[in-house]
């Protein structure tokens, strides 16, 4: 699936602000999709594109903060730029703890918003690339047999073929064959590459 152009989602219950933000972001040539409330965004299908979300922290119905929690629960990773009023410090703290990408106080300076949007999209693009790579790696590692996995663990642990063979109670030749399969299946170019990929996979599953 080919990646589309970046999209900026704007959710604000105030029509005038919504239109202003849409116009501002469109003016710099970015795609904008607007939503009048958080619920609408939740049920929308997100495109396969780097994106960010510009969200008023305070809205009737589902608030910005609640949407942040719901998205995170649903595993939707999208950088959120919160727009807060003055004196919304407790809310801002909560949003920050929830992993908000950026905070802008209302009324927002146009350039600040555009800067934040560009940064968020770049960030999301990297994240997406990262995620794609990771899922590629995961897919490749999934194809390993249990025996190959055992060999992989020991290789990554830094054992020599001889030591691995002893550990697994098999011949060094067999270990070499498994090891070759592991390198082919995972697409590792070198031992160092294999170690890096394995570490990345493990860190991500730890984080999960």
């Amino acid at each position: 699936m080919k990646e589309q152009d970046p999209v900026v989602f704007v959710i604000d219950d105030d029509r005038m602000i919504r239109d202003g933000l849409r116009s501002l972001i469109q003016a710099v040539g970015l795609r904008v999709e607007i939503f009048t409330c958080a619920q609408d965004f939740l049920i929308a299908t997100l495109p396969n594109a780097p994106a960010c979300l510009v969200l008023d922290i305070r809205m009737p119905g589902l608030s910005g903060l609640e949407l942040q929690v719901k998205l995170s629960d649903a595993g939707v990773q999208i950088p959120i730029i919160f727009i807060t009023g003055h004196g919304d410090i407790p809310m801002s703290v909560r949003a920050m703890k929830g992993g908000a990408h950026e905070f802008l106080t209302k009324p927002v300076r146009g350039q600040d918003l555009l800067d934040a949007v560009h940064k968020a999209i770049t960030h999301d693009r990297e994240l997406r690339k990262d995620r794609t790579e990771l899922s590629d790696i995961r897919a490749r590692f999934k194809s390993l047999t249990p025996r190959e996995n055992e060999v992989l663990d020991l290789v990554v642990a830094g054992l020599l073929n001889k030591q691995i063979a002893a550990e697994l109670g098999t011949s060094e030749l067999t270990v070499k064959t498994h090891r070759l399969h592991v390198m082919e299946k995972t697409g590792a170019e070198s031992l160092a590459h294999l170690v890096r990929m394995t570490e990345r996979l493990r860190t991500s599953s730890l984080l999960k």
Partner: protein
Amino acid sequence: MQSHSAPSLPLVYSYGLAVVFVALALLTSLALEHSFGNPFWFIFSVAVILSTWFGRSGAGWFAVVCSGLSVVYFFTPPLRSFAMKSSDIPYFLTFVGCEVGVTQLISWRRRAEDSLQRAHDELEVRVAERTAELKNAHNAILQHMAEQKRIEESLQVTRTELARVARITTIGELTASIAHEVNQPLAAVAANADACVAWLSRAHPDLVEARAAAERAAQGATGASEVIARIRSLITKTTPEKSAIQINQIIEQTVALAAAQASVNNVTIELELSPDLPHVFGDSIQLQQVVINLLMNGIDAIISTTDRLRTVAIRSKFQNGSQILISVQDSGIGVNPEVMNRLFEPFFTTRSNGMGMGLSISRSIIEAHGGRLWAESDGSTGSIFYFTLPSELAV
């Protein structure tokens, strides 16, 4: 006051008057007798009548005596002497008797007239006195009424001022909400102005988009100034001014002011306003104050709850063909009967930071508009505040 009684002449004058009348009668009689030869004694009767009438009985008697002497001296032979022929005596005595009769009759009539006059005068005086008394009493009442009116006016001023202070207090509680209310249109202005600049800054400026953004910015500015004007009108010192107003409009404006307050506390405000309500005759700021008060109380009652819907419902409807009923229902903690009894007392509050004047002032405002304000609560699942206002059809 001028008296109408005939002046009682001093003795000298009344007797003098008798002399003058008798003298005139004498001259007239002499002249007539000289011309016609007949004795014209009865002319003296006229002198006696006039003397008695104007000089009272003393002068009458004196006139009778003078007349008698004049007749004896000038008319009974021998003339120019006080002697009299014995044959003339009965004639003379008859004359004197008639004169005496006349003087008695006239003086009796005169006395009656006098006493009537006196009674009349007395009555006049009494009437004058009573009139003066009544006038004094009237003045006292007028003064009292003026005093009363002054007190009422100063009470009205105090009440208006108190209501204003309460409004300012409410506004103080609503600061965050109002800041949001003002900030919102300003945010729209900023975003749209920036968008306008961005469209113009492109390699090929897009004038259509820039224009649309500029128009939205201008609209936002108008919006902000409207919010400020609304708040200003709540704060500034104004004497109540009644006009025909739409209560639904008042409710909507008030809800706009408190919307952010509600949303911060996660409270939903539901409006069920009956369309096409007749106008009410009232002061829009004061009525707004009542609505905001009830609304804020509703929100306050919900804040501490966690186990229920968080809604304040405001409803309006026309009823009985003469009044509009507005209700503010909250899903809060309710009011227990003990508190309910004291709810509308001044300075009664269940909040630590409350002044305790809100409901008391609200009630006096509604009553001044000819309506009623009351509350109902089952003590646990929220309460409903009602108020009525006479519709303009009924006024």
